[in-house]
């Protein structure tokens, strides 16, 4: 008896299995619509962004530029008119509104260069950085303080006052030298050079006086020889 029941059940086995799978397939309709997430997760983006490692100081950048670091790629995210007025040496211009264009992607999404984004402050550069980081681009940095800070520290450094630490003076000397590298001329440097010239001239005029003294010495032994 049991055997017959089993046979009857087994004759339906494929239908039962098919039914189960159809029910399961119907369940797929109930699944929420899949939202395609672009780039890294918000949590990861937050973690990356609160890390201040992306900022590079103007001093560090100046040193890299003077040493002509071949891995450096400067990107100016300001608009074109600002870019034409003044920009850092060898910087290329990608205005913020074009930062996600196809033409700019090869500059940003690569691992051959250390890209440094900058703007007048770092507000726009930071925005560009966050959007690019969400897309998973690596090797991006932001110039801390931007062009304004570049002017205040490198182009026109403030002279430290007497009571400041020795390191401040060293930093000032570096910044001044850097500013000269970037084209700033110092009139006081010219004056210093003129101070040196008059000093050398009197030393030359003083030399003949010594010679006269020597002449007398030489004469004496000659006279003795006679």
């Amino acid at each position, binding site marked *: 008896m049991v055997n017959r029941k089993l046979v009857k059940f087994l004759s339906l086995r494929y239908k039962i299995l098919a039914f189960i799978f159809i029910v399961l397939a119907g369940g797929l309709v109930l699944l929420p619509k899949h939202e395609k997430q672009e780039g890294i997760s918000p949590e990861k983006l937050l973690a990356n962004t609160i890390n201040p490692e992306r900022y590079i100081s103007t001093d560090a950048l100046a040193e890299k530029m003077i040493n002509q670091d071949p891995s450096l790629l400067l990107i100016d995210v300001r608009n074109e008119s600002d870019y034409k007025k003044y920009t850092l040496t060898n910087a290329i211009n990608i205005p913020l509104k074009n930062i996600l264009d196809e033409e700019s992607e090869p500059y940003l999404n690569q691992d051959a260069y250390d890209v440094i984004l900058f703007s007048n402050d770092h507000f726009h550069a930071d925005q560009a950085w966050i959007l690019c980081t*969400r897309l998973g681009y690596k090797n991006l940095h932001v110039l801390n303080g931007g062009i304004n800070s570049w002017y205040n520290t490198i182009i*026109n450094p403030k002279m430290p006052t007497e009571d400041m630490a020795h390191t401040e003076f060293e930093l000032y000397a570096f910044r001044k030298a850097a500013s000269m590298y970037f084209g700033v001329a110092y009139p006081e440097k010219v004056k210093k050079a003129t101070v040196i010239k008059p000093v050398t001239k009197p030393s030359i005029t003083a030399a003949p006086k010594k010679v006269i003294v020597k002449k007398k010495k030489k004469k004496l032994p*000659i006279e003795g020889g006679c």
Partner: protein
Amino acid sequence: MKELEKTKRLSIAAVLTILVILIALLSYKRPEHLYTVNTQDTLEKVVNNNYLITLEDLNQENHVLVDVRNSFDFNKGHLDNAINITSPEILEDDNSRIINKIKEENKTIVLYGNTPNETTLPYLLLSQLGYDNLKILTVKNSYNQNKLITENFVIENNATDIDAFIQESVKNKEAAMKKLKARAIPKVQPTPKKVIPVKKKKKMPIEGGC
């Protein structure tokens, strides 16, 4: 009997598949935060500057001030009626709840920090998560004798014309050089004097030779 064996295996396989699907469904945790705006749309929003407001635009009834500085700074001094949500904790459950509540009340979140630069992260993160009721207060906060001073701040201010500064410095240097040349000319003359004593030197050894 062979047929029976086959169906047995088949049904075991089916049950296992169903089990795996069930486990997967149960263990699946929907991520708490999902982007609803893509980067391109966010960029467009960022480029037109209508998310920036100044102190004068601040309308207390509709605006909820959110201080993104750390709690130490917040406790030292903050704007009236501001709540503190520091940037690193912006995605935490409590804060999400507060932000959602503000959105349900149809109020606008106004973010501020020590400078507007500090609000970039929370602004961009929240706007990409789909919150469109966001503004940034363009102020600069500083302390003078432990008193909070809030003043309007111009974003991305093009403060100085660096090119002009460099040109002027070069001009100044050239002017200084010209002055120098004018002064330097009379001082060149003493060189002939040098030559005369040298000639005398040569004569003397000849005399000694006698």
